[in-house]
């Protein structure tokens, strides 16, 4: 049976699409069969982050409107044979799909003889129709936030809506874009601070890594490579499939002064 995971955040620009791309790719690298669905109709971007933008023929709206079969709209990722993308329409808006239609699409995928392990939904920002569509058929939610007041506030609001939707205790938090240099100076909230405020299970913490920008430029998710962010994303994937993986030291290799100051701090 496939597990449907929605990646959501409330606030825009915190890294939902990047997280979806990396987690989808990472799970496929771990041998799982994965479909990623972009639910951000009108502002789709999962295709470009994955480098699959030139391969789109049909999309999710075509599927719900009966213009094509679901398999015709699914793009296979050549680099990763177990990975599929179901893009959405770029020239339509969120009202083109209803939550009921979304659930129908998910049911069809769940019954597919290929037996997908995971269906990952990239949710749009906001709490309107696009969000309602994305969470409609979800079994589990990954809430992405950054250590900023605005993003955490929005994440809290989203958690409230997910709770009301029946996903309480099926929500995990991903703290994205952490800058350990700032955390160490006391100028950025730490993972513990965020955890303390939101009281949600932290399934992963991803550093603000310039390799992410490079990966997005190329359209190649970096999950699983030896960059800090690549390792952090792969650890999240392992935790999703139920492995117990210790948290990465986001401080990286660290210089002499960092070691000296951690000596003083007794860490």
């Amino acid at each position: 049976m496939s597990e449907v995971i929605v990646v959501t955040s409330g606030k825009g620009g915190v890294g939902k699409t990047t997280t979806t791309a990396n987690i989808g790719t990472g799970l496929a690298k771990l041998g799982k069969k994965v479909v990623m669905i972009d639910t951000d109709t009108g502002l789709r971007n999962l295709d470009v982050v994955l480098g699959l933008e030139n391969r789109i023929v049909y999309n999710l709206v075509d599927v719900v409107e009966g213009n094509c079969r679901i398999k015709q709209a699914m793009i296979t990722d050549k680099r990763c044979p177990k990975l599929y993308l179901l893009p959405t329409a770029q020239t339509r808006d969120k009202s083109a799909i209803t939550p009921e239609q979304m659930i129908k699409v998910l049911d069809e995928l769940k019954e597919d003889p290929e037996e997908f392990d995971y269906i990952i939904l990239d949710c749009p920002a906001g709490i309107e129709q696009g969000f309602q569509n994305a969470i409609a058929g979800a079994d589990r939610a990954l809430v992405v936030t950054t250590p900023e007041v605005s993003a955490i506030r929005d994440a809290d609001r989203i958690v409230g809506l997910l709770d009301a939707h029946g996903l309480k205790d099926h929500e995990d938090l991903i703290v994205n874009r952490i800058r350990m240099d700032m955390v160490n100076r006391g100028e950025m909230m730490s993972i513990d601070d965020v955890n303390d405020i939101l009281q949600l299970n932290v399934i992963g913490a991803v550093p603000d890594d310039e390799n992410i920008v490079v990966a997005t430029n190329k359209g190649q998710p970096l999950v699983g490579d030896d960059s800090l962010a690549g390792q952090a994303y792969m650890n999240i994937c392992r935790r999703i499939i139920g492995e117990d993986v210790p948290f990465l030291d986001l401080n990286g290799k660290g210089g002499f002064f960092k070691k000296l100051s951690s000596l003083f701090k007794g860490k």
Partner: protein
Amino acid sequence: MSLLDLFKKKGSSDVAKDRLKLLLVSDRANCSPEVMEMIKNDIIKVISKYMVIDAEGLDIQITSTESDTNNGSVPALFANIPIKDMRNSDK
């Protein structure tokens, strides 16, 4: 407490944390700072009928408290009202 903490000023992350905690409480309770101010003024009015209180030192906030039912926390109105004199000043 480490050696460095002694010299460290309060970083902006602590400010962010404090602001967020208050913000989330009012978001969750759906209660704005203006409404809180109105509640506060009304409380002062009512209590002042019976005793002399320190209106300046009065602190009210909505916090969360453990709920016995439905396994979660529920919002609670917390008020700290310093009493200057137990007798009514009007008498």
